[in-house]
């Protein structure tokens, strides 16, 4: 267990492409940090630099209180879980899990004990003598986890470990990994492009975009107070509604519809509101036209037009709506305003 600190870490690939612009953040001891962002934004690159699988072009990386810029991956006291599991196909589950220990000169009896403990924790005991090809995807995933936990490292690194699993298994493993990490208290960096995973698992989320950090914060901060329109539209399904609005005289208005009090300079702004922060009902003040009702069982999504702009409203399962004109109102406290040009929160 250790804190991790990245100080102006930068990555330029040999072909000259700058995959990560100088980036700094600290991770506290035992913290679960999720790196999230769209495909190609540099999440894996960042993680692989921490693992030592990729050279750090510039900057300083420390794990614990040791600078590890030039330390071999095997000596960084890390364990990594790969997207495709990266199990050794010719070794049994037992050997797969124990291989890292064996190379660290652990006595055989101690390896066996640790492998047994890890296997029990991950429900793998009955598969110890099988080869990876004889396991299901979920079991392979567990073996990959076993390989990581058995070493009791200072830092866990996960690179989209669940993306090869089906939705149900993904949900189950999400909870298991989180519980395991809580129990072991190992500092973790978890890469995903799935914002649900990020929201549910993270102590802190780092949203990356095109190699730079857009926002660092707790899931609630990221969700409710996005630092930019990018974060607002990336996090949440459906994403935050972003409406073209205008500030004048201490109010922000969207055409003839929404109007909220806000201390902004006169001129164009972007108004953000989460679909669930909009209410509907006959006494509400704003007219809205529903085009499509999306039935999701536990709730419904209403997609429609607000004065010519697309808007989505989230309503409970008991609210019966059909396409056509209705009335809505917004919770003014939930409104987030962004600079119309830069997209940054005001």
């Amino acid at each position, binding site marked *: 267990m250790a804190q991790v600190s990245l100080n102006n870490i930068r990555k330029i690939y040999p072909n000259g492409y700058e995959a990560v612009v100088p980036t700094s953040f600290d991770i506290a001891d035992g913290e679960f940090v999720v790196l999230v962002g769209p495909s190609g934004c540099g999440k894996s690159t960042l993680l692989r630099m921490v*693992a*030592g699988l990729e050279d750090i072009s510039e900057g300083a990386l420390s794990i614990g209180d040791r600078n590890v810029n030039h330390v*071999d*991956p095997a*000596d960084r006291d890390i364990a990594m879980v790969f997207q495709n599991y990266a*199990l050794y*196909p*010719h070794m049994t589950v037992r050997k797969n899990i124990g291989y890292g220990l064996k190379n660290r000169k652990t006595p055989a009896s101690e390896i066996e004990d640790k492998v047994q403990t890890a296997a029990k924790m991950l429900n793998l005991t009955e598969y110890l003598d099988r080869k990876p*090809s004889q396991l299901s995807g979920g079991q392979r995933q567990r073996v990959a986890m076993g390989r990581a936990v058995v070493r009791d490292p200072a830092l866990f690194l996960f690179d989209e470990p669940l993306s090869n699993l089906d939705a149900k298994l993904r949900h189950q493993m999400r909870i298991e990994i989180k519980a395991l990490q809580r129990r072991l208290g190992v500092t973790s960096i978890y890469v995903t492009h799935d914002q649900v995973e990020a929201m549910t698992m993270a102590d802190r989320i780092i949203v990356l975009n095109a190699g730079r950090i857009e926002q660092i914060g707790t899931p609630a901060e990221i969700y409710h107070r996005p630092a930019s329109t990018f974060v607002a539209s990336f996090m949440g399904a459906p994403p935050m509604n972003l409406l073209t609005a205008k500030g004048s005289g201490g109010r922000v208005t969207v055409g003839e519809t929404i109007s909220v009090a806000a201390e902004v300079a006169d001129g164009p702004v972007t108004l953000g509101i989460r679909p669930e922060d909009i209410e509907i009902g006959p006494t509400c003040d704003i007219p809205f036209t529903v085009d499509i009702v999306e039935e999701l069982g536990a709730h419904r999504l209403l997609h429609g037009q607000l004065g010519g702009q697309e808007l989505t409203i989230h309503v409970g399962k008991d609210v019966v709506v059909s396409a056509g004109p209705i009335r809505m109102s917004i919770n003014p406290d939930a409104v987030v305003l962004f600079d119309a040009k830069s997209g940054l929160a005001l």
Partner: protein
Amino acid sequence: MKRAGFATRWLPILLLLPQLAIIAVFFYWPAAHAVKSSFYLEDPFGFGSSFVGFDNYIHLTGSSEYGRIAKFTVLFTVLVTFFSLALALLLAVKADNVIRGAKTYRTLLMWVYAVAPPVAGFIGLLMFNQSWGPLTELAKSIGWDFKLGVNFNDTAFAMVLVSVWKQVPVNFIFFLSGLQSIPKSVREAALIDAKSSFRRFWDVTFPLLAPTGFFLLIINITYALFDTFGVVDTLVKGEPGNNPMTLVYKVYVDGFRGNDMGGSSAQSVILMVLVLALTVFQFRLVERRIHYT
């Protein structure tokens, strides 16, 4: 996997016919002929032949010369197979580590593959030329008076060297593609699990190359036994008498130089059985080949 079927029965047979005809004319017919003549003693001047039963075979088992050549062939095969595989593996591992220039490296090595065996033997002749061959010079500089075609051991050494040189590129290409088909993430996982590159090679890379290795082993044994004919022929040309030769070369020497068709046929029948055994072994192996997925 989905199997596609033919609408009529005779179409596949018709399509196979040319291939079958070629095999029949160039393989089954001569093979049958060889089996038949191995039971006859043929007059060296072509005046008929007489049935002698297993005499030709019995003669072979009693022949000390045949035994000596068989022993040499085994030693030759072991040496050629071992060194061509080991060298190729070494080169492939090195090439796999270089990312830049790998293509040039591969192409350069592949050229050797394009050299025909007799030409390879001829190049060997030049390299080991008694008066000015660079390798003879080199041997001389370390106090080794190299005499190709005169000294049995020296000639054997040259045969092994040229045969290995000729076979390394093929093995190299297979090993390299085997190495490159090992998933990158598996190697990276090993990088985190084991600090020593030596351990990583023997624990992870080598076992994952094993299927390629087994396959190449058979290919190389077959090569050393049969396809080195051209190399042997060039290097011992003229005076096979006192020089090392392989069993395949002996078939040729006895049959076409010695005009002993019966004995030569018996030898080739023995070799055919050997090939058959190797083939069966290989098929067995391929069937049992572990598929790592």
